[in-house]
């Protein structure tokens, strides 16, 4: 049997997804289900002075109008990431429904519950609210509190090596510019939704989340329940991208409403409400300054800037993480500050930090290449470090140069003529650009249960998440190889707190975290199976130790003699068992401290620019990645091109506009917040080096986020190549291209 890992297998849940039988959170119908609709604030800061709920309460079908006046008391939750030992997932410290205070425009302030959705929506519209509004701080340049966070994702916020500014002054060739990225929103097509039901003191919720155990912990904390009295299920999640990584308000608001009306409640956020009360990616303003010697070797690297957080959370978009690991430089200065604003708490969005960070850094590298009159691929090759540039540790795996060369070859980089505006397609300007992709390797604690049956099937369980990555498919492939079974004999169950513990599906960590647990559980299962056979007369396994046997062809066999073995059925039948199972819980070791563990890649973009209209269309895009071993070639490719697609949106289209006068999001819908549509996206190509990482489970890296990194810079660099115009503020809109001047290389 050839290994399943690496094969381009179809998704195991594909049939459910194409027949409409894959059920998402809002699709669980329970007896007596009522509908909850939230009311949101129309001021950015202040307090509610009065609710007039009379008309809403009189409206047909209304069961309750829940405001701070009649909401059950909830306890404060704990912020995401604030504990090393507990799965805390709180997204805001705002006491929603617990006080009259308002912390951002769009904050939930009431919930209307009615028999039908139309009744609830209408009644929600009838709730009249008066406020005592206070002036709000809403932009990166406002008077909000500015501070340096204590830590950035457990790392130091500032890194200084040598004299970066002095080296910049002295550099033979240099660039020094400011780049901005706007707020983005995730825009998973499935809006945030929860169905909540109480059974006495026990709570069950179906929620759209990337973290069932985090939501469970959050709900148990708020309602003062034991963890075992809360069950959270999310078997399918309609896209997350970080926006469902924490416990957002819909879950506890649905549970609150259900408690008040004594019926199960379904609460689905309207699309505008997803923008209003689920945080997005914070805007960034970044300075990148690079100096080099005449030979194109970096002499200094500066990457500093400001991002925003909110008054009810502290979130740091770690934009300078790529600069910690990508390039060798004797002088480095990396720093970051936050400004606290009266806005919905910002949160992780696909490639948090690395995504806006690579826009600035990789635009800067392109500007340096122009200044050096050096090919930008060659510039990157010349600055590849032999150890981690800021930590000094060896790399667990670094095939960055291989990825860069692979991408350049597949893309046909050699046909590029360096002079901006030198390539044309009729009236249109042609541009080719390159940028590095970067994302760290994260691994988290995880656990798993594995069961094999006499029929030769296996069930593998872990309360992790599927929101499009192909989790069940990849883990079934991994488990199948470990168990010596064909993939179609292995079933993987996920998305339920009744299953073994898993952390958030975030940070591209899930695949290897869960793979480690599955591997350990399978090892434990071998011991458990062997225990049934090792003392049995007539068993070819009699007297053997675990190290002497291996899973093979639906059973156990001597490692040194595959023919000397017996099937699961035979072992179990003799023992009078139908099945045997084992569980395991594993934590990462200290490899991440000893080694620099990162994923790399290179993004190549070809654009067409209409010089009159300033419109940019993507003609071709190639991504090449160094991400260890790929588990499923089909779903991995989908992850990469999906990341690239979202990156194209970031480059050309996406921006959440907040009216600075009120704090209201102006384009909180899918017509005005533009994500790419079919017509924006050509055939995309993704390749990978494929060398396994000797220090990760399965030799794999997570791949969900690296695909988006570097894309915006590759596009901006291609636009520069086409037009000679350097756009340093995203998105690259027609008006920006129309008003930008051509820059001539120094």
């Amino acid at each position, binding site marked *: 049997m050839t290994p399943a890992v690496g094969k381009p297998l179809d998704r195991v849940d594909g049939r459910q997804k194409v027949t409409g039988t894959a059920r998402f959170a809002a699709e669980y119908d329970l007896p007596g289900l009522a509908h909850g609709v939230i009311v949101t604030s*129309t001021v950015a800061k202040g307090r509610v002075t009065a609710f007039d709920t009379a008309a809403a309460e009189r409206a*047909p079908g209304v069961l309750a109008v829940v405001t701070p006046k009649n909401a059950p008391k909830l306890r404060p939750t704990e912020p995401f990431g604030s504990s090393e030992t507990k799965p805390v997932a709180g997204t805001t410290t705002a006491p929603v429904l617990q006080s009259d205070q308002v912390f951002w425009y769009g904050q939930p302030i009431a919930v209307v519950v009615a028999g039908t959705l*139309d009744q609830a*929506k*209408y009644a929600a*519209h009838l709730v009249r609210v008066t406020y005592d509004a206070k002036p709000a701080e809403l932009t990166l340049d406002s008077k909000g509190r500015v501070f340096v966070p204590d830590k950035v994702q457990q790392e130091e916020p500032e890194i200084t090596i040598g004299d970066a500014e002095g080296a910049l002054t002295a550099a033979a060739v240099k660039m020094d510019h400011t780049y901005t990225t706007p707020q983005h929103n995730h825009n998973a097509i499935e809006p945030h939704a929860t169905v909540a039901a109480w059974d006495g003191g026990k709570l069950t919720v179906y929620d759209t989340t990337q973290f069932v155990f985090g939501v469970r912990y959050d709900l148990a904390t708020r309602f003062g329940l034991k963890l075992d009295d809360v069950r959270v299920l999310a078997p399918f999640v309609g896209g997350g991208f970080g926006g469902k990584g924490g416990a957002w308000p819909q879950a506890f608001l649905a549970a609150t409403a259900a408690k008040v009306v004594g019926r199960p409640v379904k609460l689905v956020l309207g699309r505008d409400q997803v923008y209003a009360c689920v945080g997005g990616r914070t805007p960034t303003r970044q300075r990148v300054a690079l100096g080099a010697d005449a030979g194109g070797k970096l002499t200094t690297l500066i990457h500093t800037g400001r991002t925003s957080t909110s008054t009810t959370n502290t979130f740091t978009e770690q934009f300078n993480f790529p600069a910690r690991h990508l390039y060798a430089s004797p002088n480095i200065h990396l720093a970051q500050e936050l400004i606290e604003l009266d806005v919905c708490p910002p949160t992780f969005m696909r490639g948090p930090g690395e995504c806006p960070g690579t826009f600035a850094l990789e635009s800067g590298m392109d500007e340096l290449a122009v200044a050096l009159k050096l090919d930008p691929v060659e510039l990157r090759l010349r600055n590849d470090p032999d150890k981690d540039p800021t930590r000094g540790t060896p790399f667990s795996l670094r095939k960055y140069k291989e990825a860069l060369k692979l991408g350049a070859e597949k893309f046909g980089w050699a046909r590029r003529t360096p002079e901006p505006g030198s390539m044309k397609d009729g009236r249109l300007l042609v541009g080719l650009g390159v940028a590095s992709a970067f994302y760290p390797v994260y691994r988290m604690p995880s656990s798993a249960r594995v069961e094999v049956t006499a029929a030769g099937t296996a069930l593998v369980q872990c309360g992790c998440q599927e929101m499009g990555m192909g989790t069940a498919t990849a883990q079934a492939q991994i488990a199948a190889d470990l168990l010596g079974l064909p993939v179609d004999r292995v079933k993987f169950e996920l998305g339920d707190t009744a299953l073994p513990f898993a952390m958030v599906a975030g940070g591209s960590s899930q695949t290897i975290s869960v793979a480690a647990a599955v591997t350990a559980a399978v090892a434990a299962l071998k011991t458990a199976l062997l225990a049934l056979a090792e003392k049995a007369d007539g068993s070819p396994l009699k007297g053997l130790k675990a190290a002497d046997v291996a899973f093979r062809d639906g059973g156990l066999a001597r490692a040194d003699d595959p023919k000397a073995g017996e099937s699961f059925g035979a072992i179990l039948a003799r023992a009078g068992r139908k099945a045997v199972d084992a569980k395991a819980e594993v934590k990462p070791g200290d490899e991440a401290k000893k080694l620099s563990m990162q994923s790399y890649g290179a993004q190549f973009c070809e654009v067409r620019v209409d010089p*009159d*209209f*300033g*419109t940019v*269309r993507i003609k071709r895009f190639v991504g090449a990645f160094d991400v260890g071993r790929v588990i499923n070639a089909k779903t991995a490719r989908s992850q990469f091109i999906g990341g690239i697609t979202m990156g194209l949106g970031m480059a*050309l*289209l996406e921006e959440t*506009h907040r*009216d600075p*006068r*009120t704090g*209201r999001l*102006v*384009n909180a819908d899918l*017509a*005005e917040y*533009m994500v*790419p*549509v*079919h*017509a*924006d996206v050509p055939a995309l190509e993704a390749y990978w080096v494929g060398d396994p990482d000797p220090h990760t489970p399965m030799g794999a890296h997570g791949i969900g986020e690296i695909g988006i990194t570097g894309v915006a810079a590759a596009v901006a660099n291609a636009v520069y190549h086409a037009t000679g115009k350097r756009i340093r503020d995203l*998105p690259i*809109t*027609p*008006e920006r291209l*129309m*008003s930008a001047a051509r820059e001539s290389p120094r």
Partner: protein
Amino acid sequence: MNPFDYARAAGAAAAVTQVAASPRAKFLAGGTTLIDLMKLHVETPDTLVDIGRLPLDKVEAVAGGGLAVGANVRNSDLAYHDAVLARFPVLSEALLSGASPQLRNAATVGGNLLQRTRCPYFRDGVSPCNKRAPGSGCAALGGHNRGNAVLGGSESCIATSASDMCVAMAVLNVTIKTQGPKGERAIPFADFYLVPGETPERETVLDHGELIVGVEWPALPAGAKSHYLKVRDRASYQFALASAAVVLEVAGGVVTTARVALGGVATKPWRVPDAEKLLVGRKPTAEAFAAAAEVATKGAVPRTFNGFKVALVRRVIVRALETVAAG
């Protein structure tokens, strides 16, 4: 949505009677604008009279080469109609540049004539908006007004007309046929829409209860060519940043007919007669087109975020004219 009564119209006359009888009654056709705005509580009818199945669904030739189109003809059907494809490409192109296939399958000609603005402050239901809540002010003037109009606006309202189809119809010299409480009317396209002035809540000359039953337009001059060009950020499924519908006839080396209308930049489908006059009698050169484009945007009032549209729409006009002149 607020509660409403729903009734299917038995006929056009019955529908008119039903809607005319109640000040908050509305006709429902494809629903792509009305249902959307009802969900936003921007439209709050208490009665919907569904005219979607009335047999106003014919596309018929009229003497002299024009077309008569029923109000219920779906945008997609009109866009792919042989006569439209062959003789009025500007209309087909405009229709197919609008919305999505799904929306075009639902949206009707009559409904599209009454498509309402996408101004975010109109749609949000809470911001000051003189169109939605007369007298409340205009949040767009000092707000995020990238999508707003630079032509035809007032200090009361700068909401952009959203329809692509209407821009094409502006250059086809369409007549809008109605049936209302006071009888039947034939309204020239040029007279149909109102600029906002101080009453932006009034968008057309229609009376309450007056039903659009169809549109009609004559043939284009024998040698005329037509074209619709739309520029937007996304490659599809987006309203225009700027668009132009053009009809150009060149005979003996000079322009004999020129019609130009603009979309995405004005408060109503925006014909530019001064630009047209400038073109007639001149050679169809880049210089002439540029001069016409300059005249077309005379009086444009740029706001904080939409100033680029003035230059952009000029370039769109030039490109559209160049395209038909070359074709």
